[in-house]
Each structure stands twice: as structure tokens, then as C-alpha cells.
């Protein structure tokens, strides 16, 4: 496309042919105006559903606003943040959320890499393996949580049934805080490794065969080629997968809710669950907002830190 001729005078432009402007409508006016019209719905939506709510969130976090009390909102300064800092359940939820991220993101990355390497093998029939990566990705998280809960169920669950062969007493997974936590982490890792695998598979497919051939000629073995060719070439895909996994795992909600409902006690409560509880169940919007602001800041900090690490590497 040639540069927009913004004027009203139809300057001669051979690419447009001899009678270009006869049926001209207002949307043809020029690219700049048209672009604004076309982008308007997107930015209007982002303004209404993202920008305005975030501003309102920050503002509400400084208010005492509880819908159950019936009192009008009162400016409370940092009160919500002070009570948050002394709220043990908040610290539990924050620790759990960070632990889930620290455990499941690397675990899903390793599992996803293994899955992607297998899926990238030159099989004659490729669809069964591909399908096995897509199905876990497509099953809703809440369903995965319920299925996980059923797998780890103490009486009739599959996991205990398999463990019967190696131990005599059954494990009551959801009575123990850390066993519940591990069960949740395993389930999250299973669910999310398929997404990681799909992203990495796309990266693997862009690595030219010549690189492997050149490495082979130089006498590199399988592992050497993996370390010197595959991993470096895969770095951008790994970065994309890790960043999205980190952001989503800081928001972990569906799987713990459907597997343990945060129990036993508060041992598997995540920050997102605590925000949901304070907002929707207790209708304490001021406190819920302060919690959400903290999650937002953590998320931004993690993303920024990770991006810096990625860029810092040569």
C-alpha cells in the first residue's frame, strides 16, 4: 500500500488506476482516521474492562468498604494494608502462591520439554501424540482439579490403589497440609506441562536441520547437540512459556478450589482464593482490593525481574 494521500485532491497514483475516488466513502478518508475507527472498539473495551477497573481497585484499596456493614465507604488510608501485614492467613496464602509458582513452573517446564521432544520425533503418524498434548490443554482447569481430587481420593482413588502394592497403610492425602499441597502441585504440573510442550514444540520446529547436521559433522553426540543446539535455539520459546506460566500460576485458583477448597485448614489457600473469599463471600471490598493490589504488584515484579534476567543473558 502506498502512503496515504491525506489531501482531498486526488493526486495521480498509478497503483490505484484511473478512476480511484469515484465511489469514495468517508471511511476511505485516510489511513489515520480509519485506523482510529478500527482500533476504537479495542481500546474502548480495554479502557472499560481493564484500565478503569484497575484505577478503581487501587482507590478502593484505600477505603473501608464492606457491603455487609451497610456503612458508606470511608477513606481509611493505609489501614487495609496494615491489617493485611498482620493477617496470618494473608501470609499463608502468599507463601502458598509463591511456592506453587516455584514448584510447578520449573516442573512443568521440564515435563513440557520432554513431551515436546517426543512430539517432535519424526513419527509417520503424528496426530496421536499431538492430540495427547492438546487434550490436557483443553480440559477446563476446574475439571482437572475435580479429576485430581478423585485420583487422590483416600478410599477409592487410583493413586492409593497403585500405592497399595508398595505400602500397607493407605495415605489420606487431603488430611495433611503438605500432602494436599503436593497433590495440587502434581495436578497443576500435569495440566500445564501440555501448554508448555505446545509452545516448545513450535520452537523446536523452527530449528533448521542443518544445525544438527553441522554439529554431527563436528562430532557432537545426542546430548552435546541437545545442549549446544536445541537449548540455545529454544531459548525464546522457553522465555515465552515460562513468563506465561509464572503469570498464570501466581493466579492459581481453580485447581485448589476444586481439589481441596483450601483445606485442610488454610494449608492450600492461594492469594487468588483469599481475594475471592474476601470479595465475594465476605463482601469486604476494601480489604479484597488491598489483597488484589499486592497480587498485582507481585505479578508485575516477577514479570519485570524475569524479563531483565532474559535480556541480561548474552
Amino acid at each position: 500500500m502506498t502512503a496515504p494521500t491525506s489531501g482531498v485532491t486526488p493526486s495521480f497514483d498509478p497503483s490505484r488506476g484511473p478512476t480511484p475516488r469515484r465511489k469514495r466513502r468517508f471511511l476511505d478518508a485516510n489511513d489515520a482516521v480509519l485506523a482510529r475507527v478500527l482500533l476504537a472498539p479495542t481500546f474502548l473495551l480495554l479502557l472499560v474492562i481493564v484500565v478503569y477497573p484497575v484505577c478503581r481497585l487501587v482507590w478502593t484499596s484505600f477505603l473501608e468498604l464492606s457491603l455487609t456493614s451497610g456503612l458508606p465507604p470511608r477513606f481509611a488510608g493505609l489501614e487495609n494494608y496494615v491489617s493485611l501485614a498482620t493477617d496470618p492467613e494473608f501470609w499463608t496464602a502468599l507463601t502458598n502462591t509463591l511456592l506453587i509458582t516455584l514448584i510447578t513452573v520449573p516442573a512443568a517446564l521440564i515435563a513440557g520439554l520432554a513431551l515436546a521432544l517426543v512430539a517432535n520425533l519424526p513419527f509417520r503418524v503424528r496426530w496421536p501424540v499431538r492430540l495427547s498434548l492438546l487434550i490436557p490443554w483443553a480440559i477446563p482447569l476446574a475439571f482437572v482439579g475435580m479429576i485430581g481430587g478423585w485420583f487422590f481420593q483416600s478410599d477409592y482413588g487410583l493413586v492409593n490403589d497403585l500405592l497399595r502394592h508398595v505400602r500397607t497403610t493407605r495415605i489420606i492425602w487431603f488430611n495433611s497440609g503438605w500432602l494436599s499441597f503436593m497433590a495440587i502441585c502434581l495436578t497443576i504440573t500435569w495440566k500445564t506441562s501440555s501448554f508448555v510442550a505446545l509452545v516448545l514444540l513450535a520452537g523446536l520446529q523452527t530449528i533448521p536441520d542443518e544445525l544438527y547436521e553441522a554439529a554431527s559433522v563436528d562430532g557432537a553426540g545426542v546430548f552435546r547437540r541437545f545442549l549446544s543446539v536445541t537449548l540455545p535455539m529454544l531459548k525464546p520459546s522457553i522465555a515465552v512459556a515460562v513468563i506465561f506460566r509464572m503469570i498464570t500460576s501466581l493466579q492459581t485458583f481453580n485447581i485448589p478450589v476444586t481439589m481441596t477448597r483450601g483445606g485442610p485448614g488454610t494449608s492450600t489457600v492461594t492469594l487468588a482464593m483469599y481475594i475471592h473469599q474476601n470479595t465475594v463471600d465476605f463482601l469486604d471490598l476494601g480489604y479484597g482490593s488491598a489483597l488484589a493490589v499486592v497480587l498485582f504488584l507481585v505479578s508485575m515484579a516477577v514479570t519485570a525481574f524475569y524479563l531483565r534476567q532474559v535480556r541480561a543473558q548474552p
Partner: protein
Amino acid sequence: MKLPAPAALRRFAAFAVIVNGLFPAVWIFLTSLKTEAELTRIPITWLPHAPTLENYVRAFHDQPLAIYLFNSLAVALLSTALTLFIATLAAYALARLEIGYKDLALGAIIAVSTFPLVTLLVPLFQTMRTLGLLNTYAALVLPYTVLSLPVCTLVLVSFFQSIPVDLENAAMIDGCSRVGALFRIVVPLSAPGVFTAGLLAFVNSWDEFLLALSFNSATSMRTLPVGITLYQGEFAFPWPVISAALVVGIVPVAALIVMFQQRVISGLTAGGVKG
């Protein structure tokens, strides 16, 4: 990459990947065919002894599963349509028009995709409550549209860029407006891209749970994940019946995936997507 692994090893690896990916879904399907008596047998049985569809009948009969299914479909289809429409317009501007703030606009759209949805929960809950939109489709359709907008825009931008500009110019010479050329030439030619973007938006909506649970908890407005989860909590619900309900919720997306595997893969890779 071409590993020199022996064929047997490769086949074993493929088998392991297939079992890992499909087993949980297959297991839930098998569970849904078992009777309750069989389910509480120790050691557990693998294949159902007397397969029955009774659980499916009960899943629809004991709870308003049909309504949940309808709600999920309605919300997913409405938000997919809205996302596609808005993303098509934006993607065309970003792919074709010469605008100075293109990078800025793309950056803003991508930034939104890294945004924690949970933080929108409180203010959106406030807004929806004030506007009386709690327990309506709109409460979910609008946020879901935003959720899928970034990835759909990126997918469409890359497809639009692959359409030769000459085709559009030819249409405009024949008297078509730019917008006309977009909808008569570019969109039909990018049908695979539009379809891919639509699939991703549909799966996103089908999966979403937090907002659905928070905004639409009235029984008649629940989507499938919310309906099945809450029902399980409200009643001591027999597992075979829940399994049947889960299978009902998985089949629509699984069918889409099976039919359009390649599209989904290409879409997921077009713009680093949420998982």
C-alpha cells in the same frame, strides 16, 4: 530434531506421552460408566463390569446440567463472536494501515494479555453489582472478550499480513471501500486464521472459572465448571454422576480439538498464549 534413538524406544516414548495426555480423560469416562456399587469396591476395577449409561441420565436429571451446558455455550459463543469482530477490526488496522503508534498499540494489547485476571475481580464485581449485571451473560461475555482479545488480535495480524495487498487494491479499484475490502477480501481469505482465533477464544471462555463463580452463581446462570463444582459441594454427590457431568463438559472442546488439531497448534504458536 532427529534423535538416533532406536525405533522401539521412540515408540515407547510416544506411548508414554499418549498415556500421560489421555489417561485422566479416559479414566473419567470409564468411571462414568460404572455403577456406584462398583466404584466403592476395593481393589478398584479398571474396566466397568457392567457398563451403564444410568449416570448420564442422572447427571441431567438430578441437576440442571442442560442449563449449565447451555449457559457455557451461550457465553462462549457470544464472547467468541464479539472477540472476533473487535479483533478483526484492530488486526486490520495493525496489519495494513500506516500508523505511527503501531508498536505502542500492539504493546498495549500484549501487556493486557499478561495482566492478572484476579485483580479485575474486585472492581468488576463492584461494577457488575452496581449495574445489576450479576447473574447475566453480559457479566461474563465482556471480561471474556478482553481475555481473548490479545491472542486473537495477534493471530489475525499475522494472517492478514500474509494476504497479498494487491488483492485489496484491485477490489478498491473496482469501487470497494477499504472496510468493504476488509470484509469481502481479507476476512474470507484469512478464514483459517479467523477460525483459529475463534477456537482459542472459545476454549478460553469454556475454561474460565473465577469470574463465572463470582459473578454468576445463581443456579440458572451457572456455567458448566461452576455448576458441577458447586453441586458437588452442596450435595454429597456420587462420583459416577459427577464423572458423567465432566464428560459432558469435556466432549465439546475435545471434539473441536480433534477436528481442528492443526489450527489450534498454529494458533497457539502464533502469539505465545495463556495456558
